[in-house]
């Protein structure tokens, strides 16, 4: 059983070692010998206790260790001083509760891996054959004789002869609100994916594809009413930038509420989530700064970092050990290309991570990253695009989930597109940071302010989530989503498909590996009235093609059961039951699922 989590459990103790100065081996030994600190679950999950508790355990060991093995006086003092500092400032405060971190990355058999590669090469080979025999119809441009082609050969080959075969699985037009159910506009292709025609039929599907985590994508109800009211009062747009007469009362109210919701001093909002990252990161960084970025970070973060001109180092996805190694190396070596023998430290180091990774379904190891950030004096940028609203007891994202202090994260970013059923993004943090952004951010200088109805929808949702509307609808939605997530993921594990990610993440990737299987799965599921999303190369590594399911609080148990039955049936037909882990024989009861808040 090769799970990535096995290494992951080790990571925790490594971090502990670095935090406290204890020998890593000692902790490891204790872990195995004394009381089975790390437990393997039958479904392949590993029980893992977060770094804060490891620290507590380690502390009793600390005295013994320092007395016996440290011979160097100066070294000893330094270590001691450091230990005291961390214990006073950072960790104890956070160590309120134990959170069990269950995450799984089961690897497929070698046969599947081989077949996946083979399948891809066959697809490419057929593509080349097809290109040789049937040259593309639209390759010739008018008015542009003698020009070099506008795009490179491989990209146009790939899109025309490989992607085109499965093109029908994406960009499906809908003609309803993307709620628990969605109405697809049926289309057919008569020329193998070059063009599509609408049949005029509509197909009502269970929506497992939209990021409607809390089910606030609704065409009626208090949120939509408030948005319409704002539309009549303020219009579609305020037509100006925030700095130049584009601000309206709704923006101010929204920012106040967002800051209150997140428990920080202030917040600033922008009209587009993608632009929030792409336009604000450059205002914070300059050449000579170092960014340490997770390899699975979203395109907008990568664009923002690229525009800033800072140096980037990438760490393995959610791998705290690798992150620490990078941090150590970078502090040790400083900026490269210095005259010989000179040492120039980085101006500042910014760690950029996401809360919930939208393709992997993983939850960031926030407590450990916060500890590392403090130890190595780095800054932390947390993108909560998929986690805000979706996880945590109060829907306040990963910070809420881990019971961390929001002040430990320097820049809290998030979007309102997903859980809030709206659009736009925010950045929250200290008063000083937000004031700086209001003044300096490209987005508030040059880009249009957020549309008033969009802001109104978010305000209405925030009020519901905070219970300010006088009901407990918000709390119920958050609980339903958490329950749906655990139920769905556990049932999927029973079915025997390989899923990735944390058991509390509402993003559930089901691994399909083969390119053709992704397409077959998406198509069959749409035939059976379930709308899902397939993701393959180049959006994921070649070996990790997948179907992605996004759960919602709007889904009922009956809908989930239908989806699970159908997925099980289709997975049998197509052959997706790759999992070789032992399965939980007991039936999973929806109402009895414990939510450990």
């Amino acid at each position, binding site marked *: 059983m090769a799970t990535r989590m096995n290494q992951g459990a080790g990571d925790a103790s490594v971090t502990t070692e670095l935090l406290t100065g204890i020998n890593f081996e000692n902790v490891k030994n204790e872990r195995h010998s004394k009381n089975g600190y790390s437990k393997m679950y039958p479904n392949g999950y590993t029980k893992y206790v977060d770094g804060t508790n490891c620290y507590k355990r380690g502390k009793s060991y600390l005295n013994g260790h320092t007395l016996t093995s440290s011979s160097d006086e100066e070294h000893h003092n330094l270590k001691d001083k450091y230990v005291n500092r961390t214990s006073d400032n950072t960790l104890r405060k956070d160590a309120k509760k134990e959170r069990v971190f269950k995450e799984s990355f089961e690897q497929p058999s070698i046969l599947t891996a081989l077949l996946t590669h083979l399948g891809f090469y066959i697809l490419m080979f057929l593509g080349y054959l097809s290109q040789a025999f049937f040259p593309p119809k*639209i390759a010739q441009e008018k008015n542009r004789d003698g020009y070099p082609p506008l795009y490179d050969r491989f990209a146009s080959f790939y899109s025309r002869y490989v992607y085109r075969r499965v093109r029908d699985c994406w960009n499906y037009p809908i003609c309803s609100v993307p709620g628990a159910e969605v109405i697809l506009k049926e289309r057919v292709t008569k020329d193998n994916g070059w063009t599509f025609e609408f049949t005029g039929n509509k197909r009502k599907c269970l929506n497992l594809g939209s990021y409607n985590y809390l089910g606030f994508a609704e065409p009626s109800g208090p949120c939509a009413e408030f948005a319409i009211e704002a539309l009549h009062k303020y219009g579609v747009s305020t037509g100006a930038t925030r700095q130049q007469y584009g601000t309206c009362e709704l923006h101010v109210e929204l920012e106040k509420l967002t800051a209150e919701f997140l428990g920080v001093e202030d917040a600033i909002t922008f009209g587009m989530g993608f632009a929030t990252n792409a336009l604000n990161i450059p205002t914070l960084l300059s050449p000579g*700064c170092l960014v340490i970025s997770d390899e699975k970070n979203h395109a907008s973060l990568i664009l923002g970092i690229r525009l800033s001109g800072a140096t980037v180092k990438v760490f393995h996805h959610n791998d705290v050990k690798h992150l620490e190694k990078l941090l150590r190396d970078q502090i040790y070596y400083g900026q490269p290309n210095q005259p010989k023998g000179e040492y120039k430290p980085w101006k500042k180091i910014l760690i950029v991570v996401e809360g919930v990774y939208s393709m992997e379904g993983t939850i960031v190891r926030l407590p450990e990253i916060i500890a590392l950030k403090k130890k190595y*004096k780095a800054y932390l940028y947390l993108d909560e695009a998929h986690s805000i609203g979706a996880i945590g007891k109060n829907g306040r994202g990963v910070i809420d989930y881990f019971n961390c202090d929001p002040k430990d994260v320097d820049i809290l970013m998030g979007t309102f597109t997903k859980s809030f059923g709206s659009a736009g993004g925010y950045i929250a943090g200290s008063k000083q940071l937000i004031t700086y952004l209001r003044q300096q951010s490209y987005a508030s200088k040059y880009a249009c302010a957020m549309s008033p109805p969009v802001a109104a929808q978010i305000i209405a949702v925030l009020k519901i989530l905070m219970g300010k509307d006088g009901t407990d609808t918000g709390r119920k939605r958050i609980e339903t989503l958490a329950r749906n997530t655990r139920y769905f993921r556990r049932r999927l594990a029973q079915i025997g498909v390989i899923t990735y990610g944390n058991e509390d993440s509402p993003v559930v990737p089901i691994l399909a590996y083969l390119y053709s299987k992704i397409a077959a799965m998406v198509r069959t599921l749409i035939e059976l009235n379930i709308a899902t999303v397939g993701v393959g190369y180049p959006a994921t590594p070649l070996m990790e093609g997948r179907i992605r399911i996004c759960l919602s609080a709007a889904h009922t148990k009956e809908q989930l059961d239908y989806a699970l039955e159908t997925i099980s049936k289709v997975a049998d037909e197509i052959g997706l039951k790759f999992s070789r882990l032992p399965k939980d024989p007991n039936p999973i009861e929806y109402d009895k699922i414990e939510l450990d808040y």
Partner: protein
Amino acid sequence: MFDEVEEITVVTIVFFIVLFLLTILFRLFSNFENENSKLNDIIFRQRLRDFCPAALLNEPKNDLLENNSKIETFAVNEGDEYGIDLAKVNYLNMLNSLKIKEIAAECIYKYGVGTCGPRGFFGTTEIHLELESSLAKFLGMEEAIIYAYGFAAPSNAVPAYCKKTDVIFCDEKINFALEQGVLASKSIMIYFKHNSINDLRQKLIEASEMNSPLCHLRKFLIIEGIYCKTGTICPLPDLLGLVKTYKLRIFIDESISFGILGEKGRGVTEHFGIDVNEIDLIIGSLEGAVGSIGSFCASTKSIIEQQRLSSTGYVFSASLPTFQVRAAITALKMIDSSPEDLFRLQLLSRKVHKFLQTSLCYSVQSDPISPYKVFNFKIKENRWQCEREICDYCRSNGIYLIANEYGIIMNLNVSLYYQKSKLLNIFAVLDCAANNLVH
């Protein structure tokens, strides 16, 4: 026969042995390197202790908090009868249209507010498709693609085509969003003087010389229809001459000019009577004359297809909320059905231009027919401060203008055409503000 087989076998075996040895050597070498690169613990701790990162905010300003109230300014209350909002981009008065508001509200009743997904993942509604086809039809091009923010199209379309090994010739006054796009593409940038054909020709000749390293690279020309920084119109016919001679790909950003230039609002191409198919890519904004949110690109099918696959701001961003799409469709129809409004707007623009030109205290940069006016206070010293004061004075008299680093900016609204008294009021207040400063 057997000899051959033997030979092949021997060669294969030798090959594998060599490969094996190489692997071992490589391993050893990398181990050796690791040994060397092991951190010296004492130095590391010292460096960590001495590491004193710069503040998170790039230029810490002490007066940040004090200036808080001045950073943002509130939208002008529409109900205010005496207020004249020249800060808002609302050339054709679409933002105040009751019809658009009603249609957009209906759309919320059907589709909700947000789309909860990127275009590829059930974020495409039939209305998005309708807007794309009506934009393409409006411009007379094959296909259009919409983005969820005014900023997104210029900054994402450019890197979708231009790569590291390309050369981009761009006007030195291109707007900020385009600048970001050019930066993100990492191409070789060559700026030419604002609207200067001769300078561009000079640079093109230099780049096309046989011994120039840029000779065989793909070349792009990026310009704006009406420049955001100056309000001038690009000399498109002359530029097109160069485009043909030097085989440039030409991208025009019509963020401002779309919907206001030309008889029917088709933009700068119609203004000069040029066939749109001469242009490789038209980038436009829905936040200008259209009065919604978002932006778009229009071109041939194959060129747009490329963007749908490789433009990050399109693929990885949530789609434009449906009610904004609906508002844009309605506005496009209204532009199409009332070309007289465009005519009035151009007349109004000329009138204002004439006033600014004849005024003793102002020098105007923008084109006469552009409703986006950029003008400066004539007195050179401390110009920026003076312009601020002029704007403040105008605001206290109910006229809202924008002052930025390029000058004073005024966005005309077609409704002023009918309100002669308001227009005269603007002129009077502007004169008065300048006179106050002079004396």
